[in-house]
């Protein structure tokens, strides 16, 4: 009897030990660390201030992640290549400045100004991409110079108007302040989920028919857990005023980026070039084009982020570029598990990373902590993320897998 008990205990122990060993020996943890960190942060703030996890505060939080999140999507595209773009902060302000000057002082219609604003950031991304991909200048230096030029452009546009231009058009007011009513929030999100579920089930059935693929239970469990998260999220937001329009736009950008990076040939090339540029070149991939396209696409997302920020604040302001908008986006991408060494990570990581950054900021405000503490905590989280990334890379190098 004793012997049997002992045996089962050892078996259980060895199973647990094996699982822990597997975790510690893993070379790619994906988004596990960021989700764990997010849960821990939410628990801590909820204990410190019970207002943290209320529908009202979560609604605020969901709007606070939008700008950092959109810029982090852009940064993720570039970091996946093993490069970096330090110009995204000022480039986003260029978009906002072009938009505000166009709508307020030239009285241009609002939609052309949206495209002009985003177009300005696209041009900045494209020109930087040319220098980086054709000439081979390191992206760090190119984007540092790009940031300075973008700052100059912003000052050239805004200084004569006192450094900031209040927006008055209907579109930015609507985007910056309105919520999608609860009923429509439910209709839109559940319809999108249904479409996604149908596609993934059809794909699963196709795969099973050809004698491969996961078990039915895994696929259903994945869909069910997604549905649960969706219902809780939308439910909380609808318990206040519905989904903020800002959030809806950000989620659209997120899903478009996810589709691009995970399901298309271009996305495959993005990961391939970031993982092993020489292998990609020998496989016939146009490495320079992929780099140029990534910086240009990042420019489009940066422009969108700049317009969303201006809509949220109701003003296009030069001081935004001086704030930590760029550093927050880089931090969000890295905290989300995207490796600065390239080839590993995902745009969903940028979403969770932005959520971590915004949660810390929001929670610190709620408990009335000074900025000094807030910066300290954010810095520690960023250092933890990059340390994990570096340790995992060293482990890959040791086992000859880098």
């Amino acid at each position, binding site marked *: 009897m004793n012997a049997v008990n002992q045996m089962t205990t050892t078996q259980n122990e060895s199973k647990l030990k094996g699982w822990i060993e597997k975790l510690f020996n893993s*070379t*790619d943890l994906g988004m596990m660390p960021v989700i764990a960190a997010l849960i821990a942060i939410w628990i801590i703030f909820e204990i410190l201030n019970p207002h943290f996890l209320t529908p009202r505060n979560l609604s605020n939080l969901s709007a606070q992640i939008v700008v950092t999140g959109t810029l982090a999507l852009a940064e993720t595209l570039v970091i996946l290549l093993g490069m970096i773009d330090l110009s995204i902060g000022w480039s986003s302000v260029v978009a906002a400045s072009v938009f505000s000057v166009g709508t307020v002082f030239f009285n241009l219609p609002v939609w052309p100004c949206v495209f002009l604003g985003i177009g300005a950031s696209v041009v900045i991304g494209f020109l930087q991409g040319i220098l980086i991909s054709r000439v081979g200048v390191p992206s760090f230096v190119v984007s540092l110079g790009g940031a300075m030029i973008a700052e100059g452009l912003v000052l050239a546009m805004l200084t004569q108007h006192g450094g900031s231009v209040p927006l008055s058009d209907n579109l930015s007011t609507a985007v910056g302040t309105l919520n999608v009513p609860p009923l429509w929030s439910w209709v839109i999100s559940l319809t999108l989920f249904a479409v996604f579920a149908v596609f993934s089930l059809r*794909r699963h059935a*196709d*795969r099973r028919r*050809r*004698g*491969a693929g996961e078990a039915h239970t895994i696929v259903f469990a994945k869909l069910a857990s997604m549905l649960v998260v969706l219902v809780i999220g939308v439910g909380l937001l609808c318990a206040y005023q519905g989904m903020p329009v800002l959030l809806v736009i950000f989620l659209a950008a997120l899903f478009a980026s996810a*589709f*691009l990076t995970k*399901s*298309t*040939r*271009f996305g*495959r090339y993005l*990961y*391939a070039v*970031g*993982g*092993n540029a*020489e*292998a*990609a070149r*020998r*496989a*016939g*991939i146009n490495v320079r084009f992929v780099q140029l396209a990534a910086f240009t696409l990042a420019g489009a997302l940066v422009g969108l982020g700049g317009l969303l920020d201006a809509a949220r604040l109701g003003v296009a302001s030069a001081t935004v570029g001086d704030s930590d908008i760029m550093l927050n986006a880089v931090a969000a991408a890295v905290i989300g598990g995207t490796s600065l060494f390239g*080839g*590993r990570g995902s745009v969903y990581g940028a979403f969770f990373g932005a959520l971590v950054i915004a949660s810390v900021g929001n929670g610190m405000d709620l408990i009335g902590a000074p900025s000094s503490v807030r910066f300290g905590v954010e810095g520690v989280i960023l250092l933890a993320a990059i340390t994990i990334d570096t340790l995992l890379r060293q482990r*890959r190098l040791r086992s*000859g*897998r*880098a």
Partner: protein
Amino acid sequence: MNSASTHDLLSVKGLHKKYGAVTALRDVSFTVRRGEVTALLGDNGAGKSTTIKAIAGVAPADSGSIRLEGQEVHIRRPADATSLGIQTVYQDLALCDNLGICANLFLGRERVSGPFGLLRDVDMEEEARRVLKTLRVNLPALDTPVAALSGGQRQAVAIARAVLWGKKIVIMDEPTAALGVAQTAEVLRLVRDLAEHGFGVILITHNMQNVFEVADSVVVLRLGQTVMEERKSNLTPEAVVGCITGSRTTIGGMA
């Protein structure tokens, strides 16, 4: 010689290549037969890699001829070699470790549909499974990142990619250099299998034991020249080593 010519798949004659003032290849000639493994041997600097690069189109030779199935071919770029059915497994494998097995097999030649270049993963996986089955290679799930594979498994992925895209000739540069005993045996079996499937295999190696295990014929280069081309059955390891190092100058009929 004439009786064997129907089996001749690739025949290289008088390859010459200069890098600036340095003559890398003086006169390299040899023949690869269908369904056979041809070992390409030589000391460091003998011209093995340069010969391979000329055939793979990475660095074309200055003069000399390459005939594939009796037809003279001109290989100027890697794409030319690929379209002629010649694939190379490089020493560093040229795999993207962050991508899955299937993604690596189809890298640069993805099956896509629609205006966005939507990846047809299920089709690609099906074809990958078929190729891996004919090679009798056992690999984990096809979306497993290559980083998670052993050295032998990675080599198998690189070889499978060459088989998937090569139709006639597979060139392997030191495929067993970094492998353990069991993995080396597995890769050598793959090499043998490829020949039995009708490929002409060119195997570069320093390991004499490997040569005598799998090769059908042996070509030795020294200082950019072919100094021996002989059936394995007529050779001993000592004779081959002697020829590589230059302590013997003539073996059998070749000079």
